């Protein structure tokens, strides 16, 4: 994968396949230890421990395990090759949590990429899923919660009149979201990650 935003799209796609209704994405920077971290947490069907043991090994990802795909070993590799860490935990019928860190200054660290595009692709395809994006650095916090957006879109009365319902995947909303997210992330990671100017 060329950047983190594509890894995120890939991992969250797994979450959606696993029938998740809530997907939480946490991107954080820990300046003290030069680490960029990523946590993707869902409430999907999860995996049992046998499967989990195999899932981050690319060589066991054969046809039978394709439903999870190569995405997890690829993210693991991206983390480990820049002296980061990788971890995944999952519980049947509870959900899955993927955790990865990356050494910010390492030459092999992937750039963060277009997270706005990833989020809007996901929201377009799965408007009913509740997505929460939380970005944190020394510069502050940015949160995007699709439930909040839906409330705003449905107006004060909560969209009780059918007329007032605007879907979150309406083009104008999607376009606004993409810019809103990318601007938010720029405020949080600008100057902190060398690929983003402050």
């Amino acid at each position, binding site marked *: 994968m060329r950047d983190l935003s594509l890894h995120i799209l890939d991992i969250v796609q797994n979450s959606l396949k696993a029938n998740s209704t809530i997907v939480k994405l946490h991107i954080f920077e820990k300046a003290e230890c030069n680490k960029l971290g990523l946590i993707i947490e869902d409430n999907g069907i999860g995996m049992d421990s046998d499967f989990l043991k195999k899932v981050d090994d690319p060589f066991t990802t054969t046809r039978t395990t*394709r439903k999870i*795909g190569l995405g997890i070993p690829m993210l693991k590799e991206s983390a480990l090759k820049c002296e980061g860490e990788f971890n995944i935990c999952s519980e049947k019928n509870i959900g899955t949590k993927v955790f990865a860190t990356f050494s910010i200054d390492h030459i092999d660290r992937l750039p963060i990429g277009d997270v706005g595009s990833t989020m809007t692709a996901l929201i*377009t395809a799965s408007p009913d899923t509740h997505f929460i994006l939380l970005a944190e650095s020394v510069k502050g916090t940015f949160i995007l919660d699709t439930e909040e957006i839906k409330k705003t879109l449905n*107006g004060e009365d909560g969209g009780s009149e059918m007329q007032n319902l605007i879907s979150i995947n309406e083009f104008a909303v999607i376009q606004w979201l993409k810019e809103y997210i990318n*601007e938010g992330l720029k405020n949080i990671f600008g100057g902190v990650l060398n690929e983003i100017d402050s």
Partner: protein
Amino acid sequence: MKSIAELEEIRKKTLEKISLRTNADGIRVVVGMATCGIAAGARPVMNAFVEEINKRSLNNVSVSMTGCIGVCKLEPVVEVIDKDGNKTTYVKMTAEKAARVVVEHIVNGQVCLDLTIGAVEK
């Protein structure tokens, strides 16, 4: 700076258009978003569909994604499913090809035969 207040504006503007909307007998566009699809550039293809569909104010077309379609080497793969359930599979898609499919296939009902899986696998 972008703010949530702008959403209010978007809401009002969109409400005016939305009353014209019909969702019956829609066409579905499904983009393959397995790992291989994403790596091959499925995200810009999906965005191009969304953009073109909006540009032409097509109100009865939905865009969604799916996982593995089973043909890694032909990714990005896109399926266009018409209101009767007929499926056309487009392969090796790009944003430019997406724009063409919207105009020729979705608007004018002419399948872009040269972009389909049948044409490529010959």
